[in-house]
Each structure stands twice: as C-alpha cells, then as structure tokens.
C-alpha cells in the first residue's frame, strides 16, 4: 500500500514536471521596449519573411490583405492560415508589440497557447528585436480584413496543443546552422536564409516527428503537399553560380531559362523586391553550404 501511494506520488510529480516543462513561454512584456519601429524598413522584413505568401487569401491579387484561408496539408493534418491582418476582432490588431514578438520568436499566442509549427517560428526565433519592431510598425499600415479564421483540421493526438510544447523542447532553439566567423555578406545571407526567409522549412528533410533534420540542412525534401520533390540547394546537387542564384531570385529564371513554379513563385515575387545586395547575400550563403 505504501509502495502504491509512493508510485502515485511519483507519477503526479512526473506529470507536473512534464506539464511545467512543456508550458508556453512568452517573451517578457518589455521585449520590444526601447526599440523604435520604422515601417519602411519593416516592409523589407515583411517581404523577406514571406508573411503574405501564406497569409494572403488563396489566389489574392492584393497580397497585403492578410485574411488567411490558404490550406497546408501535412502528415499531421491540414493547417489553415489564420487572419493576421490588423483587424482588432478577427485579426491581430489588438495585440501589443511584445505579444507579436512572442508569436514570432516563441510560437506562443497572447492567450498563452502553443502555435503549431506550420507557422515557421523555429526560423523566426532568430529574428532580431529591431526587425520585429520595424515589422510591427509596418503592420499598422496594412489593410484590415473582417474574414474569420478557419479552424485547423488536425485530429488526435496532434489536436492536443500541449504536445507542441514537447515538440518545441526537441526542435525549437536559436542556434545557427551555419556556424563560425562569417563576413558581413555571409552573415546577412545566413540571417535571410535561416531566420527570415525560412528556406529550410521546405528545402530541409524532416524526421518522423516533423522536426527539421539539421544534419541534412537544405539537402532537398519531399514536397509536403504531395507530389514531387523540393530541390536540394547543397553544392553536390545545385551547380548554379552565385550570379545565377541571384538572378533566379530576382526574375524566376533558371540558368537555362526555365522558370520558377509552385511556392517558389511567391518567394521570387518577394525577393525581386529586395535589394540586389540581399539577393547576392543569399546566393553567397547557398554557395557556402557544405
């Protein structure tokens, strides 16, 4: 009897510890204190981070209305991008800057719930505070949408959000994949590729739990939407030179003048609006991959 009671006590303690360890961890309320946001610079962050590529309505012509509704199929269910326009009721207009930062860097909602990692916060976790402040300033200039967000279509056990806390323990960290001393151009390229543009989300293969396999970084992967493969960017497979990569990101043309298709169309649309220096930085990073 005493042993039994002891076992129960241990079980309760383990459960409590697990509950504690998997809790959502928002940033402190003063996360953006002292940072002055610049909307013009925020637009660059907005384009590089590809917010509209997933959060604009399906086939929308005005990509600045972030009303949501695009569907993303995965092994764990279908995720539906929510309305993140500045509408105070249906969107995120009522959020504070710190809540916005918590969503991006910690994957935690203002109500203290985990977001599913279809939202690429594993990349955004590396975003600089100044960039988040700039992005938030730009956000205030976007049009609001009153469209209601649609629920995700995720079934048990993935419907238990607390499980995402376990997933975060395994896969959410702020470490760079490309390590070492980088020159300013490569550093900018790494920031664009690994943090803002979240290239790894599609170009890196995932393990059985859906975490990115960092040992096979950007080495190509199955297309989560079903048919086809997402190409590798590693030097054993991608033979384009830096100029060709930059030109592809600007115009969508490959070196033999085929053109981008699928989700890369949205990426090129954004990268075509960035500076030539930023495209060259991404190209330099890709060429520096092992």
């Amino acid at each position, binding site marked *: 009897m005493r042993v039994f009671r002891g076992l129960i006590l241990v079980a309760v303690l383990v459960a409590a510890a697990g509950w504690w360890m998997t809790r959502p961890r928002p940033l402190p309320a003063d996360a953006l204190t002292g940072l002055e946001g610049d909307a013009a610079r925020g637009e660059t962050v907005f384009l590089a981070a590809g917010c509209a590529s997933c959060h604009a309505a399906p086939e929308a012509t005005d990509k600045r209305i972030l009303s949501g509704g695009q569907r993303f199929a995965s092994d764990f269910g279908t995720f539906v991008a929510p309305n993140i326009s500045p509408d105070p009721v249906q969107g995120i207009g009522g959020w504070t800057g710190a809540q916005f930062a918590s969503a991006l860097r910690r994957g935690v909602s203002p109500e203290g719930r985990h977001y599913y990692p279809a939202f690429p916060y594993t990349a955004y976790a590396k975003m600089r505070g100044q960039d988040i402040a700039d992005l938030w300033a730009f956000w205030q200039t976007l049009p609001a949408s009153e469209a209601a967000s649609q629920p995700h279509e995720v079934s048990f056990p993935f419907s238990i959000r607390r499980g995402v806390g376990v997933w975060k323990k395994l896969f959410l960290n702020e470490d760079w994949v490309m390590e070492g001393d980088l020159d300013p151009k490569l550093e900018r390229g790494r920031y664009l590729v690994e943090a803002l543009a979240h290239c790894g989300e599609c170009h890196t293969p995932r393990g059985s739990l859906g975490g990115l396999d960092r040992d096979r970084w950007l080495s190509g992967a199955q297309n989560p939407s079903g048919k086809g493969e997402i190409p590798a960017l590693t030097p054993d497979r991608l033979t384009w030179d830096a100029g060709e990569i930059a030109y592809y990101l600007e115009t969508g043309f490959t070196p033999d003048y085929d053109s981008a298709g699928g989700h890369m169309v949205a990426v*090129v649309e954004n990268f075509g609006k960035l500076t030539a220096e930023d495209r060259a930085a991404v190209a330099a990073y890709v060429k520096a991959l092992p």
Partner: protein
Amino acid sequence: MKKQVFALATAAALIATGAVAQDYSANLKARQGQFRIMALNLGILGGMAQGKIAYQAEAAQRAADTLVAVSHIDPGPLWPEGSDNMSIDGTRAMPSIWDENADFLAKWGAFGDAAAGMQQVAATGQEALGPAMGKLGGACKACHDKHRAPQ
C-alpha cells in the same frame, strides 16, 4: 477459328486499356519544343540584360520577335484534353489546364503581352531589357505556379 478468337481477345484488351492507346507524343513534342524555343530566346535577352552577352540591338530584336511569334501559336492542337500528368507520363501539365481553361488561356495571353512589351523596347538599349525580362518572368511564373506540377 483460333485466329478469330485471338483477334477478338486482342481487340477486347485494347478497348479495356482505352485511354492508354491514345498517343499524344506528337502534341507533347510540339508543346515542349515551343517552350524550348522560348527558353533559347529568353536566354539571349537575359544574357544581354545581365551583361553576360554583349548587347546587340539587332539580335535582341530578333529574339523578341521570335517570342512574339511563339505567342501567336494556336494553343489548341498542342493541348488536347487527356494529355495531362494524371492521364499520361512525360508531362507536368496539370489537369487544371483543362478544368480552368479560361485561366490557362488568359495566362498564355499574358505571356503574349509581355513578349510584345519586350518587342517594343528590345532594340532601344541594353538597360531596357531588365524590366521587360522581369515582366516575362512574371508571366512564366504565374502559369507555372498554377498549372505545372513540381518536378
């Protein structure tokens, strides 16, 4: 008698496999060749735009004229119904080309508009090529985004 039975059985087998018997290889070669012609000439203009090939007004104009000529090819015979990637091998053409044919034709038309834009400026100088290439790239991507399957 034996021969007749064999012939009947063969005929039945052919009918049973129905769609497979349709041969679209000529249509596929024609439309893929069309895209090769486009890529070759885009390569001349893109090479000049990037400064990899020396700019030459006459060659640029010829390449642009060729793109416009391709845009005038009637898409009908190139894209018969049933020649999509769900029905046959060797193509990345998605069924949406036929399910949403008006959208497909509008996007093909947009390529024609972009080619005509290039035709107007190709001979006016090297710096005019970049923006016109951007519009052509946009037209290519728009259709590939929707109607071409990933590799």
